[in-house]
């Protein structure tokens, strides 16, 4: 009879529940004396009201506030009991979130750092290429659509070049060449900006052209172009005052990454880490792939 009772799943469940309760009581008592007391302070009530008001754009009415407090108490009870049972330990989202909170600490601390002028100057001289001011171009183009000219493209281009060079750099191109969705006149645009619209290849060619003269056809990612560069400003390294804000931003980002790294390293140093890999499976994947997979 007794044995039969012991075999009942319900009984197992009850025994397990009692054990868990006992264990959690033990843990609670050990960790802190007043875990059985829940005190909602005026500050917390204000906080609840505040949160509600920001979401609803109005303060809660008395009933709503009661509800908020009731819910907060419920959350607190469950929260404490869950922690006592260790329910946070194997829960991936909770672990992720706590990890993120730690990262926020590190990020925040890093964000406090204000670089001195000297630090910025040396950052600029250590990373000149990051701040190099691009070549800038002012140019006019005439577009030749390969589909419209076919094999005559080159001869058509030569004819137009003669005409254009007669008129010079200020030639009126509003009716020359084929329809094109990019503006005919481009004023003081960086070579990165040129590459964005016309492709890298064309931007690179532009740097080689003699200023003030119509030349072409030059290949772009879009078709052939006749081009007259009227002004070119060479690329150069800027003075700190010209790019102070950008240098500050880059410095801060580097500082942030480095300080996050150090922070983790310092924490890691407090642990001894032992990784026990399972024995590699007979054939299947390479170890590298196996380790990489989450």
């Amino acid at each position, binding site marked *: 009879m007794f044995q039969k009772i012991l075999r009942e799943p319900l009984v197992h469940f009850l025994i397990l529940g009692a054990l868990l309760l006992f264990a959690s009581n033990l843990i609670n008592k050990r960790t802190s004396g007043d875990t059985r007391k829940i005190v909602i302070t005026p500050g917390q009530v204000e*906080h609840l009201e505040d949160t509600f008001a920001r979401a609803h754009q109005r303060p809660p009415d008395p009933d709503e506030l009661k509800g908020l407090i009731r819910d907060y108490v419920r959350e607190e009870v469950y929260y404490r009991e869950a922690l006592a049972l260790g329910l946070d330990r194997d829960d991936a989202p909770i672990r992720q979130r706590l990890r993120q909170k730690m990262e926020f600490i590190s990020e925040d601390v*890093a964000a406090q750092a204000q670089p001195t002028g000297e630090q910025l100057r040396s950052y600029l001289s250590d990373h000149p290429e990051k701040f190099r001011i691009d070549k800038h171009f002012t140019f006019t183009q005439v577009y030749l659509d390969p589909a419209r000219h076919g094999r005559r493209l080159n001869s058509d281009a030569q004819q137009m070049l003669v005409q254009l060079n007669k008129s010079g750099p200020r030639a009126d191109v509003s009716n020359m060449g084929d*329809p094109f969705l990019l503006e005919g006149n481009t004023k003081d645009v960086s070579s990165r900006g040129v590459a964005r619209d016309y492709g890298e290849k064309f931007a690179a060619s532009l740097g080689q052209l003699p200023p003030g003269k119509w030349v072409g056809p030059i290949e772009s*990612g879009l078709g052939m172009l006749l081009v007259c560069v009227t002004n070119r400003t060479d690329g150069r390294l800027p003075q700190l005052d010209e790019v102070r804000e950008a240098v500050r*931003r880059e410095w801060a980002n580097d500082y942030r990454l480095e300080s996050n790294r150090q922070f983790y390293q310092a924490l890691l140093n407090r642990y001894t880490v032992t990784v026990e890999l399972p024995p590699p499976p007979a054939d299947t994947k390479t170890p590298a792939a196996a380790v990489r997979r989450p």
Partner: protein
Amino acid sequence: MILSLRICRPIALAGLVAFVLVFFSAQFASAQETDTIDKDSAAKLFPKAPYSPAAGRDFPTHVYWGDTHVHTSFSMDAGAFGARLGPKDAYIFAKGNEVTTSTGQRAKLTCPLDFIAVTDHSDNMGFFPELFAGKPEMLADPTGRRWYDMVQSGKGADAAIEIIVAFSQGKFPKALESRPGTEAYRRAWDETIKAAEEANEPGKFTAFIGYEWTSNTGGNNLHRNILFRDNGDKASMVEPYTTQKPEGSDNPRDLWKWMTEYEQKTGGQVLTLAHNGNLSNGRMFPLIESFTGKPIDREYAQTRAFRERIYEVTQIKGDGEAHPFLSPNDEFAGYEKWDKGNLDLSVLKTNDMLEFEYARAALRNGLKLEKELGVNPYKFGMVGSTDAHTGLATADEDNFWGKTSSSEPSPDRATHPFVKTDKAVIMGWEQAASGYAGVWATDNTRQALFDAMQRKEVYATTGPRMIVRFFGGWEFDAKDALSRNPANPGYLKGVPMGGDIRNAPAGKSPTFLVAALKDPIGGNLDRVQVIKGWLDASGQTHERIYDVAVSDNRKISADGRCKTPVGDTVDVPNATYTNTIGASELITVWKDPEFDAAQRAFYYVRVLEIPTPRWTAYDAKYFGITMPKEVPMKGQERAYTSPIWYTPAN
């Protein structure tokens, strides 16, 4: 009632009038208001090109590229998937800098973006106590002062450790505990705003402040992003609206209320755009509201039309322009299709749901509703965005970093299930490397881009940055397609994408100036299509596709279609293609051959590229792997413009 009155007025102003007031000089305005213009008056308006090329032209001459939908580690789910990059990193990456991804790989955009919005989920956003961001109280406290000095002298990591120890031992300075309890949520929002403010460089790069409101009851996707026109001073006066009760709600009507309240409180402006109707199981563009079971009413229609002027039509979780079941005659429908079920695959898809999920069908139903309710709730423009949960706004096939950090490049990312339930599976390879938003704005600022979105002068692409112009009016003729800069006659004689044409002159049919230029580093163009939808006298809606310009001298038949495919140069094993077919540019003027002035209609443009390798082909090549047979290895990328609507008088 007050709400509907307030909304009513802007709607009446929308389209033409607002556009004219804001964007055109007085000269342009006189031409626009009448909607018709003959050659003589055009000549008077533009007697001679001004000496200065930019003079007298206030219209947008540049398209700006961006992503309105990027998640970072601040999103609960992104974090759980292993995302480590935060908003700051997302902006750094979008600007064209190299970053180390969450899986430790090096990533960089081939071409930087002009703007992005970091839109982390508002529910459970971020976490963290406001520690001590530059507070005077902190400096007054000796421990705080010491930490501050440590940070300043480059010992930030040590300071952080001390802080943690102080916390854990209950020795954290009281002076620094200025708030009751931890204010995690506020904290994440502040961080989000801070990152955007720091990254925002007016004229160069726009970092929108934004968030995602993730209404997902029953796994049915009604997600919407919210973008702020404003800077941090206003955005920080509120906190993002959530879906969890009691603070939030999963009903879009409540989100719209929140938006109105924000605008009243701050004098600012916000917009919202929905996405992934394909995962809503028939709820994204309803005729019957799922929350009440009743037909949508005039107030819903008005508010939605006012609040939701654009829609994110294509993204990693599938393309939502058209579905083959709804458009059986459209051989290009069904691109990157996700139609197995709702977002969590808890309920499978049935065909009757599709009509309320896809953009083209919604545009059609909008005409029907407009006739019934007097307002068209689905009068939206279209953009693409990624919805990447990696902090990496990538939509290029040869540089695709996946939906989540767990689907960043790896040999098996294509063959791992992406979502799996007992009902269905979506495999990793089904992710689409899509899309971006093209915005015709006058400047690269929050305000100019936002305003362009509100007037719907925007278009979607599945990744390539092709330039697309689309103008509608009554007087375009073939010569306009030959003008050196098609935008000049375009703005002079018509309205741009997103606009309205009305009051058809007797005997006239609408004409459209359509132009597309390939991405300078992308595939050539196959064809440009105009897709028309209309409402007939019996209240039925219809759609029809016209090929209006095609490459390689192919013929367009009398029925308006070109039945000859462009061809295919894709070499799958090498993941390459050649631009030996297709055109770099297609420009034409098209006149609706079947126009009926009494019928409501919309017209939008679809541009198709020649076939190019899909990201799965680049993966196979790079990792030296063989993809399963069912995996598509190439595709025809495309652009969708915002429609131009025709509304009959009365």
